[in-house]
């Protein structure tokens, strides 16, 4: 297993390098002089010159990348133009909020999604199944930011159960988690349902029936366990989507977090912050994918052997 983990981590290195190059290139691809994209507003020519020297902006691109990457490795992501503080400290302030929201939403999507998907598969063609299918359709077609706004409208404005926005209390987490969660639940439930239906037609399931194993055990201990494989695959591929959902939803609920920071900075063209946020989100996506791989290997011995 340790072997497997190391191999997977090594595979992520080239991906990380490519992503870092793309993100590095942002300030160079944006029209205009790169120095204007990273210098704070109202800087003197001397300050500009100092920055040019610090980042080697007069040197060839590859050298600039090396300098930038080197600083990145020491945690130096530059200075925010508008907010006038180190990008790393901005990220440090915002990251915990996104982590909490993202992981709660992920947990909610996984648990509720698997449960509803399994229920729909076991009671197929019943009203339970049809209800779940309807929720799946809604969850995968309704834009999440609109759902968030509706939640605010109903539960915060009209009923007053939860705060409209912000992150001052735990109750402020409920609506954002539910909003991101519905999309996640729809995804997980759909995969779980289809997978369980597929697997229940396999020979070994017939054999389990022939052995006299009670149906609930066949469903839970065998079929569901198999169904977890595609579920985990989808989750590890789509973990980014749930994080992406967090980006949108933070903005809707005016919560602090990487997503809000990213959108605000994009609108203000605060490129060092944009770079920092995108980099963190990319890392989160990669780690999420890795997590999925690990869980998959834990469930299926064949996966462990193939790559371990």
């Amino acid at each position, binding site marked *: 297993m340790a072997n497997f983990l190391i191999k997977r981590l090594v595979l992520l290195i080239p991906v990380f390098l490519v992503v870092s190059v793309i993100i590095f290139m942002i300030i160079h691809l944006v029209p205009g002089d790169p120095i204007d994209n990273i210098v704070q507003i109202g800087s003197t020519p001397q300050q500009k010159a100092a920055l040019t020297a610090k980042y080697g902006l007069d040197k060839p691109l590859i050298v600039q990348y090396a300098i930038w990457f080197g600083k990145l490795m020491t945690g130096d992501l530059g200075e925010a133009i508008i907010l006038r503080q180190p990008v790393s400290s901005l990220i440090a302030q915002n990251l915990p909020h996104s982590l909490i929201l993202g992981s709660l939403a992920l947990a909610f999507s996984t648990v509720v999604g698997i449960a509803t998907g399994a229920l729909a598969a076991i009671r197929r063609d019943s009203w339970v199944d049809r209800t779940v299918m309807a929720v799946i359709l809604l969850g995968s077609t309704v834009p999440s930011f609109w759902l968030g706004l509706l939640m605010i409208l109903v539960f915060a404005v009209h009923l007053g159960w939860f705060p409209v926005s912000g992150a001052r209390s735990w109750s402020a987490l409920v609506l954002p988690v539910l909003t991101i969660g519905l999309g996640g639940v729809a995804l997980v439930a759909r995969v779980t349902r289809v997978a369980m239906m597929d697997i229940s037609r396999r020979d070994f399931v*017939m*054999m389990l029936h*022939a052995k006299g*194993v009670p149906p609930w055990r066949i469903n839970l201990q*065998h079929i569901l366990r198999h169904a977890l494989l595609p579920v985990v695959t989808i989750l590890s591929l789509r973990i980014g989507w749930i994080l992406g959902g967090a980006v949108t939803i933070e903005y809707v609920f005016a919560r602090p977090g990487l997503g809000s920071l990213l959108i605000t900075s994009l609108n203000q063209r605060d490129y060092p912050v944009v770079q920092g946020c995108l980099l963190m989100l990319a890392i989160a996506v990669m780690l999420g994918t890795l997590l999925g791989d690990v869980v998959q290997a834990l469930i299926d011995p*064949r996966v462990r052997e193939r790559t371990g």
Partner: protein
Amino acid sequence: MALLSVTDLSVSIGRLKPLDGISFDIGKGEIVGMVGESGSGKSLTAMSVMGLLPLIGGKMTSGSIRFDGIDLATLPEPRYRALRGRRIALISQNPMTSLDPIIRIGAQIDQVGILHLGLSDAAAKARSIDIMRQLRIPEAATVHGNYPHQLSGGMKQRVVIAMALAADPELMIADEPTTALDVTIQAQIIQIVVDLVRERGLSLMLITHDMGVVAQACDKVVVLYAGRVAERNGIDAIFGEPQHPYTRELIRCIPRHDQLRGSLTGIPGAVPSVMDYPSGCRFHPRCADALDICAGAIPALEQKAAGFAACHAAINAAGKVSAHG
């Protein structure tokens, strides 16, 4: 009294009627061969006895299945379940797909002992390893901890057999237990099953399309064709004086050692589809002895010599014989 007694069993799946009035008995300690080409309803008969028809959307439309005096057709599902794997066990067709690929071999055999015999985990494991040894699985204790993909096909089939034996069943149903295996292993597996069954005095319903296997192992034979019983008799009578032309064709198809490879003969014509069974005797379009009546009237399963055959030609021949003398 017979251990298993199937009378006039008919099964429908949707609008199709793949089984039509199947009757046969299996006595205690008997090995009964169920023979026929694929599509004749052998596996479906096994599914009916196992009570697993609902899994494939089928249901019994008439007839009865009695096991040790219990009417299985009306048995409530929980009691049926207590019977499955405990008193009636199945050895499935394809060992490659019959084991749960992500659960250890041992756990899958232990499951039966734990479930039906109330054994502790440790006792079930000891028992499983013991059965695996009897099945001549080398290094049984190691294999017990392996996953299915780590075993060869022959080994997997032995594991499936071990699962079937785990709760000391009285009746075993082996559904073409060797078709998915290499030819060299086939005879070996059949021999292992037959030896075990004989040793323990179990009853066995052996489903196969190979009359050679039947000759090697069985006491009695039921020949199925297109969802009906064509002929039923003791092993010697079937091979000595086969009544039904289909039975004769099956016997003719047994591969012999002196035959050249590639000269295996099949029965001319194709098995009719369940969607479109011929009228009258369902074998008549392929039958060399077909009479005019065969296309119009369904032949009844009538006593013939020591057994039963459903064939107009056979009955006619018998009539002539008696008329002449």
